[in-house]
C-alpha cells in the first residue's frame, strides 16, 4: 500500500480548481476584450487560430489532465514502462496536428476566395501587415 500524501492531494485539488476557474473565464474575457488591443490579430499571427483563447485553453486542459494522471492516478510512482503505456492515447495529438495543418492549409490557401467575411477581413489585414 503506497503512502498517501494528503497535502499533495489538496494542493493538486486547489490547482485544478483555480485552473478550471481561469478556463471558464477565458471565453468571457475573449468576448469582452478579444476585439480590443489587437488581441485577435495577435492571436491569429501567433497561433494561426482566429481565436487566441483556443491555444491557451488547449494548454491549460493538457496541464490539468496531466496533474490528474500523475498525482491522482499515481502515475508518477509507476514504472517507466507503465507510464509509456498510459501515454499511448496521446498519439491522438499527432493526428490532431496533421488534421489541423491540412484544414488550415485549405482554409488559408486552397479556398481563399471562399472565406466568410470575418475571416476574409482578418486575412486581408494579415496580408497587409506583412
Amino acid at each position: 500500500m503506497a503512502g498517501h500524501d494528503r497535502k499533495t492531494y489538496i494542493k493538486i485539488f486547489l490547482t485544478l480548481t483555480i485552473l478550471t476557474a481561469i478556463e471558464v473565464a477565458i471565453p468571457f474575457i475573449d468576448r469582452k476584450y478579444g476585439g480590443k488591443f489587437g488581441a485577435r490579430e495577435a492571436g491569429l499571427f501567433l497561433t494561426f487560430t482566429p481565436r487566441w483563447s483556443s491555444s491557451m485553453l488547449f494548454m491549460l486542459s493538457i496541464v490539468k489532465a496531466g496533474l490528474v494522471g500523475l498525482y491522482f492516478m499515481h502515475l508518477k510512482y509507476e514504472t517507466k514502462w507503465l507510464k509509456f503505456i498510459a501515454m499511448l492515447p496521446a498519439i491522438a495529438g499527432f493526428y490532431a496536428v496533421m488534421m489541423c495543418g491540412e484544414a488550415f492549409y485549405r482554409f488559408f490557401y486552397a479556398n481563399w476566395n471562399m472565406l466568410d467575411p470575418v475571416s476574409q477581413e482578418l486575412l486581408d489585414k494579415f496580408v497587409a501587415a506583412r
Partner: protein
Amino acid sequence: MSQTHAAAGHDAHGHNDHGHDDHGHGMPALPDAGFGTATNGKIAMWMFLVTDGLTFAGLLLGYGYLRIKNTDWPNPQDVLGIALTGIATFLLICSSVAMVMSLAAASENNRSGMLRWLFLTALGGMAFLGIQAYEYNHNIHEGIKLWGMVKPEHLEAGEKWKFAGVPDNFASTFYLVTGFHGMHVTTGVIYLLVMFFKGLGQKKITPQYYNLLEIAGLFWHFVDLVWILVFTFIYLI
C-alpha cells in the same frame, strides 16, 4: 543458515544470496522488470483505459475535424451554459479528490473513513449526472437535438420543434461526445457503489479489497481526466 550470514548482508554475497531471503517457500517474489509492484488487475485496468482513451481521442478528433471544416460553427458560449457545466466540472474534480481520500483512509485501515469518502465520490458522480440530465433537457427545449439544431427563430408560429433540414454537426458531436462520457460516469457510479457495498459487507479492509479499490479509483480518475479535456474542447474552445 546462520545469523552471521544475515549480518554480512547482501553486498558480500551478490545475487546468489536471494535464496536466503525467503523462508523456505522457493524463490522470493521479485518486482516485475517492466511493471514493478503493479498488480495484474492494475495493469489490465491501465490497458483498458488506453483503449478507452483512444476511443475518446477518435471522437474528439472527428469533432475537431468537422469543426475546423465548418466556417459557420456556432460559438459554444452562445449555445451552451458554460457556468453550469463549470460547476459540474468542479463537482467531478471534488469527487476525484474524495476518491484519493478514500484510498488514503483505506491504506490506514480506517474503514469508516474509507466508506464515507467512497460514498461522497459516488455522490459527486450522481450530482454530475443530474446536472447533465438537466442540461440535456434544457438544450432539447432550446431546439438542440441529436439529429440537428433548429434555432427558435427559424420555427413557424405555434411550432415547438422540427427536424433540421441538414444534419447539424454541432449538436450531433455535442451529444455524441458528452453522452459517451456520461455513460462512463454512469458506469463509474455503479462501479463505485458496488465497491461501497462490498466494503460495507466486510469487517476489515483486506489487501485484496484495497487493490480492487485502487483499480476502481483508476477508472474514476480517468473519467475525470477525460471530462477535463471534453469540457475544454466542446464547451470552451
